[in-house]
Each structure stands twice: as C-alpha cells, then as structure tokens.
C-alpha cells in the first residue's frame, strides 16, 4: 500500500514515515500541503494521512483537493487539538482521525480499517 503523509512538523512526519516503512508500508512524506498536491500529481496513493492544522493549505482543504485529483484515495486525519471540531473531521466520508502523539499500532489499524471500508 502506498501512503502519503503530510504534517508541517518535519521531524514528526519523517520519523513516522520511516517507522511505517519498517512495517511494509510504501510511505512518502512532505511537510507542505502544496508539495503534497505536486506529489499526488506524479503518483497514485491508496491513502493520505493529513495533519489538520498546517500553515498555508490545511488538512481539511487539502483532503478536498486530493480527493478531486484521486477520488479513490482514502484519508486519515491527525490532530493535536482534541476538540469537538476535530471529532467532526472523522465524520467525513472515508475519513478517520487520530490524536497526536499517536501509537503506531493504532495508526496501522486505522490504515487497514480505512482501506477495507
């Protein structure tokens, strides 16, 4: 499975991508929503893991644009807020949310769940 990870905290997302790769995930990462759109233009992804709050293009808007480019792409949101607003993103079709800091096993389970939906 090919996964796109997007989070403006570069140290977080690069480490997460590497740990997912140890678990057999073809993980690609970027710290910018705009760069994520360029990456999606160049390759197909099964799923994207997006930080909700990012400078420039935020997670919610990024999801809309990625979905337009690749309708089959599934989404998981990462959030550091834990507020009711964040829970709402989990109600979007084919989307889940996870709170940071996260457990890699929980993310792997959400990835499997999301792709099997």
């Amino acid at each position, binding site marked *: 499975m090919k996964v796109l990870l997007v989070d*403006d*905290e570069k*140290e*977080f997302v690069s*480490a*997460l991508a*590497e*740990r997912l790769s*140890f678990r057999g995930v073809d993980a690609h990462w970027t710290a910018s929503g705009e760069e994520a759109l360029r990456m999606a233009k160049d390759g197909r992804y099964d799923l994207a893991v997006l930080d909700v*709050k*990012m*400078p*420039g293009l*935020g997670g919610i808007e990024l999801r809309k644009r990625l979905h337009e480019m690749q309708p089959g792409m599934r989404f998981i949101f990462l959030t*550091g*807020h*834990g*507020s009711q607003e964040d829970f709402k993103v989990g109600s979007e079709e084919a989307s889940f949310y996870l*709170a*940071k*800091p*996260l457990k*890699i096993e929980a993310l792997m389970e959400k990835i499997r769940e999301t792709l099997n939906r």
Partner: protein
Amino acid sequence: MTGTAKTLAAEGLAFFGRMNAAISHDMKNVLAIINETASLLDELMELQQDGQMEPNPDKLRTLSRRIVQQVERGQNVITNMNAFAHSIDVPVREVDLVRVMNVMAVLSRHFATGKTLDLDLPNEGPRVTTHPFFLNDLIHHTLNFAIAAAGPGKRIGVAVKASDEGGEIVFSGLAKIERTFPSEIAATLAQVLGVEIVVDAGLIRLTVPAKMPAEIELG
C-alpha cells in the same frame, strides 16, 4: 459589576481558554515528535543490533539530539506559559514591555501558521504600570489581526520602544487592511488600559501609557 467589568470578565475567560488551547496544541506537537523520534531510535537500534540494518551511529546521534531540541522547545513553551499564567497574580503592576511581547510572541506562534514574526526587541524595554493580563489580551487581538492582514511576504514586524507617553508596540508589514481594527473587545481593552491604537499605512501602533488610568473599575 459594571458593564465593562462584565465584558472584561467574559473576555478574560475566553482569552485564557484560547491561550490554553494553543499551548496544549504546541505541547502535543512537541510530545508527538519526541514520541516518534524515540520510537524510531528504539526500532533502528533493534534492527541494527539484529544485523538487519547496517550500524549508523550518526543517524542515531541525530535522532537523540532531535529529542533534546524538542525538550528545549517544550521548556520554552512552558516557561512562557508560566509567565502568562502569572500575569493575573497582581492585577495592576509594573512590567517590561519587551518581556510581555516576548511571551506573547512565543505563545501566539500557534495562531501565526504560515506567517513569520520578525521581532525587533531590545534587551530591556520601557516599563509601564498596567494590567498585564489584559495587556496580553490586547496584544493577542492585535497580533491576530496583523497575522490575518500580513502582506505577500507573510512577515510581520514587531518592535517595542520607549515613547514620551510610556512605550510603543508596533506591528508592521500589513497589507491592505479590509476589516476594521480595533474590534469592539479590543477597543474596550484599549480604553481600560489607556492604550492608544493607531492604524496607518501598513502598521498598527499601540501606545501604552506609563501608568494605566486608575478610574475604571475592573470588578
């Protein structure tokens, strides 16, 4: 309680809530990086010990240093959070405007997504007698407005200097300002604090008096 006091009481709670949410979000990011980096370090060491990966001490060192940096980042947030929390200890007291601005700049980073604050702050600033908590709140409102109005370079200049009246905080680099400033609540805060707000040609200037007016009852 007067109308102004009621307004400020409600605004004070709302401000406290907004800042706590921002601080907790920043700390969650710090903990997320430490968690991910420490876990990666652990997994890399195991893979290298098992012979499944070539030893790479440089990488391990980079990752461990990253953890230390994030601890320092978290410490910085907490130190400034503590300063903010104590701004309510004594309602009216003397403060250094540079120190006030430094604390608010760190704590407001959460709201400045995509923009950069260029701080032009001397080591020591003008000292004024004011209500620190509500001055923080007014600065927060002004900074939020400046962030939203930042020009194409997305950089906001923040300068603090002494003035004949007391001290000045100037936010520059603003593009065409389409919304009006100050808002009603910012205007109330400015009135209570005796702060003069000037919006002009890409900047906002807050002139903080050496001593805030004593006649307004905050309740």
